């Protein structure tokens, strides 16, 4: 009686839960699940530890973007007051969040780790112009933390581990590179520690406190 077994299953489910509990629903706005380490959220434009912007206006992010949501224009650095350490800097930088699919390809393309993604996804705007984030809104503040705009709902930890895959120390899977840090420091954070489960060269065995890196260079 294979046909009737299904009826027994649904009836049993009415009174019995699954292994993980009575219901599998997360009551979203009231209870929130912890975000994964490599969560893709709203972008931030990072700065070096000396306050210089990392973006060099190369437009690789805009070129790779499958949703065509990034608009970048580079300009030559003013010699007396340079914005970035290189020759050029990102003079216009806009991301349209009505189009962005948070694929993280821009982060992969970026040669200077200027653009990374935070874990913020709870931002809802009420007009189209708010949806287009300008450079002023994307670039991190003087403390190195992302700016918290009025319509954004930041939670503790949303700005940590940004784009953690960048900080996987052995991206090609070769054990030789394990523990070798190849990323630059960030304003407010210094050189971020590697992804969970790995450690940088010369670091103690226990997971270091990330806030310790702040400010020194």
């Amino acid at each position, binding site marked *: 009686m294979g046909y009737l077994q299904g*009826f027994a*299953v649904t009836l049993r*489910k*009415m009174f019995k839960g*699954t292994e993980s509990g*009575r219901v599998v*629903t997360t009551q979203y706005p009231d209870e929130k699940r912890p975000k994964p380490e490599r969560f893709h959220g709203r972008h931030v434009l990072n700065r070096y530890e000396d306050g210089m912007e990392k973006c060099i206006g190369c437009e690789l992010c805009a070129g790779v973007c499958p949703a065509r949501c990034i608009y970048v224009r580079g300009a030559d650095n003013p010699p007396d007051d340079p914005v970035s350490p290189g020759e050029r800097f990102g003079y216009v930088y806009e991301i349209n969040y009505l189009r962005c699919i948070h694929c993280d390809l821009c982060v992969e393309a970026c040669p200077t780790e200027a653009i990374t993604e935070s874990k913020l996804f709870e931002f809802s705007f009420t007009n189209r112009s708010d949806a287009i984030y300008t450079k002023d809104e994307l670039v991190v503040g003087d403390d190195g933390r992302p700016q918290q705009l009025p319509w954004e709902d930041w939670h503790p930890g949303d700005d940590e581990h940004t784009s953690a895959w960048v900080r996987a120390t052995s991206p090609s899977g070769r054990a030789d590179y394990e523990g070798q840090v190849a990323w630059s420091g960030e304003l407010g954070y210094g050189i971020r520690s590697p992804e969970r489960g790995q450690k940088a060269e010369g670091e103690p065995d226990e997971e270091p406190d990330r806030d310790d890196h702040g400010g020194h260079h």
Partner: protein
Amino acid sequence: MIVGVPLPGPTVFGLDPLYTGGVGLAEVLITLFKVGVAFALLMVAVMLMIWFERKVISDMQNRIGPNLAGPFGILQTLADGIKLFFKEDLIPEKSDRLVFKLAPYLSLVPAFLVFAVVPVGGNFSGGNGRVSLFGHETFLQVADPPVGILLVLAMSSVAVYGVMLAGWSSGSKYPLLASVRASAQMVSYEAALGLSLAAVLLKSGSLSTNQIVSEQSVWNWNLWVTWVVPMVIFLIAATAELNRPPFDLVEAEQELVGGFHTEYSSIRFALFYLAEFMNMITMSAIVVTLFLGGPNGPDFTSVGWLSGVLWFFVKLMLFLFFFVWLRATLPRFRYDQLMDLGWKLLIPLSLGWLLVLASYDVAGDRGWNRAAAVIVALAIMAALASLLALALRAARQRRELDPQGEFV
């Protein structure tokens, strides 16, 4: 087997004792009252039914379901209805505007009308279903026309037009495909529906729903009087007629977007939704009336009509739960499977069963040996069934040899 209950008179209102003494103001008012109560009852029932279905399905899928609007989310349907009411009303440019606007009502009105012939209460063990309402003897049903069951069949046929015209008038391909499916499905299964119903009519000898329920009092339910099979066929055919899962090809989201109501929005969509669930309730009520004795059951209250209403409600809930359970359990049929089931199994089976029942009755009337008559009838049916199976197999073999149909 025609039961010799004398008709009180050839009135269009049927057997309702309310109208035997002529129709005055009081009679009109009582009738209007009954109509109003039935209308309100159905609307509230639909509201609760949608909530009930969502909750039960959630439970079966380890989800929570609606839980924010009112206690246990019971007002969710009301909130949805209000939302739909205030949404923008869109009419596609290529649509046939008049038919497009008419179709939801063609769906909804039959759903309401069917409920008019369902006796929802009354003491059928002695009082023939009569109750006293404002000092007048009447039935607890809006109308009891002598052709009651035919009205049910007629209305379910009219309801096909609602679905068909909605799809056709949308001026859009998916609704059109859905409506083609819907008309084919509903017309096919109406045959099985009608034939299984004929078994009931054969036994009760009347088309009037009140008579059918009276015949079943108190434990003489048609479920066992007609030997179970007609009710099973009726239930399956009713599920197909309602376009409920597993026969919801009309609304197969994966294939047809939303189905026949893809282009509908706002209040017109709400009307279709309302009609769908109302049909479910009325069809369950019809099953209860035809096979489970309607309000019949042991009288356990001192108030005469109350126990009948309660029994009716309990039986109704049984079927409503059954439909929800069916939806949670079974995957959707493929279109050819649906047609196979309807034409090759249900229609022959219900027809054969009707003939077996008839032979039993005829043998009783003529004084023959009933058991022998039934055995002979079953043997003839078995022979016919094997002939049918042979014919189907031959047809299938020919299809396999000539899949394109080139050499027919």
